[in-house]
């Protein structure tokens, strides 16, 4: 748009154009230099750090009990079901934030641990579930074998949770010691847990229909932290 000072504006534009051209020419001729052999300008090397990680779990039974205010000792009729009124508190420890847990039981006296759900003399069916750290005990129906006796604690260490194939699917396929997703009071994922994660371990004990011993039977339950990488 032509203005009163149009001529001056034009001169200014010309000056700026000339300055820009000069700057461009200086850039083209003054500073550039070539490197005859760029291939030897750099060298690389690799360092490798293998993390010496620490896995861990703290098992806290301080408030756990079969009855309100009770503890983990129980007097039970034969062929009866008992469920923890307050669960055992589990806390993931160490410095490795992809941990999972295995459960293993050991029978210390004359009774044995059942590996199927068929009632048998002197066999205790010991079920376990791990879920949200809260104090509402699950129903007996929530602590039972679903398929393949997945929730029985046996003398073989069994990993809690799902295999890595099913983990991202957010489904209930092949869960072991883990509540169904829809059980919102109890469910919380037990795969790939970070340090500091807390969970509650719930137990259900089904005594045998018959026994040959009237003595107290003790069972040791071992919770072990294991890596969740690839599992």
């Amino acid at each position, binding site marked *: 748009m032509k203005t009163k000072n149009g001529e001056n504006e034009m001169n200014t534009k010309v000056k700026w154009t000339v300055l820009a051209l000069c700057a461009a020419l200086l850039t083209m*001729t003054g500073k*550039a*230099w*070539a*490197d*005859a*052999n760029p291939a*030897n*300008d*750099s*060298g*690389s*090397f*690799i*360092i*490798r*750090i*293998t*993390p*010496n*990680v*620490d896995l861990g779990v703290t098992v806290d039974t301080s408030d756990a009990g079969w009855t309100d205010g009770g503890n983990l000792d129980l007097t039970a009729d034969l062929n009866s079901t008992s469920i923890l009124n307050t669960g055992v508190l589990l806390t993931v420890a160490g*410095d*490795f*934030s*992809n941990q999972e847990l295995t459960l293993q039981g050991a029978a210390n006296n004359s009774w044995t641990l059942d590996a199927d759900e068929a009632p048998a003399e002197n066999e205790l069916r010991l079920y376990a579930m791990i879920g949200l750290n809260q104090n509402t005990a699950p129903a007996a129906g929530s602590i039972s074998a679903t398929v393949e006796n997945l929730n029985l604690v046996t003398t073989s260490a069994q990993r809690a949770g799902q295999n890595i194939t099913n983990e991202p699917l957010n489904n209930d396929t092949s869960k072991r010691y883990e509540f169904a997703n829809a059980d919102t009071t109890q469910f919380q994922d037990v795969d*790939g847990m*970070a*340090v500091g994660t807390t969970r509650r371990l719930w137990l259900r004990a089904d005594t045998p229909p018959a026994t040959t011993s009237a003595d107290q039977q003790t069972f040791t339950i071992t919770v072990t932290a294991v*890596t969740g*990488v690839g599992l």
Partner: protein
Amino acid sequence: MKSIYAKLEGIVRSRALRTIAFWALSFSALAAPVPVLADANPGNDSGAFTIRLLPSVDLGVVVDTTGAHWFGSADLDAVSDMGTTQRLETGVTLTVTGNFNNQELELEAAANDTWTLASDESDAQDQLRLYAMIGADQSTPPSAALISGAANLVTGTATRAGQPQADEGGDANHAYEFSTAQSPQYQDIDGMVVGTTRSLWLRVDTPPLTTSDEQQSFTITVTAVSGAGF
């Protein structure tokens, strides 16, 4: 009317006279001062032109990891607890090569696995803090405290070692460079000439927490760059 003889005599005399006159004038000309010539347009008496030679210089650095190793390790592989510090006991030797006597170095690193490289000094899960210092080519490893500070973190961005040109005479704004008073580690790493040797020292701080227990590798690249104007 003159006879032919007379005419011939006149011709001979006139030639003789002209010859005499010629030589006389010639001698007089030789004896006289050289006349000064004027130039009506001196502006076009000369011409100039410029040739420009662009040096096709060669920058270079040789990175020699022979013998370089962490404390407690035989080489550049280490097994490390979480939340701990490792440092080299023997540094990596760097030698400036090529034909350009004003070279500086850049450091850059790449994380090849699941851990990443920290760009600040705060602790974070799965982040490695990788520090570097370049100094005199000697065998006394610097303490961990001498290999620290956010300016000395090696990241995914190539960063020039040394000081900005404005600070090169002083002791401020070092990157990957020891304080000038630090003996025996300090040696200037700005504007290095061909054949200069330096030692590269590394320190790694493992993260307090990790989601992977697998080996983590990191590639460190040292690149020679021009120190002109930097």
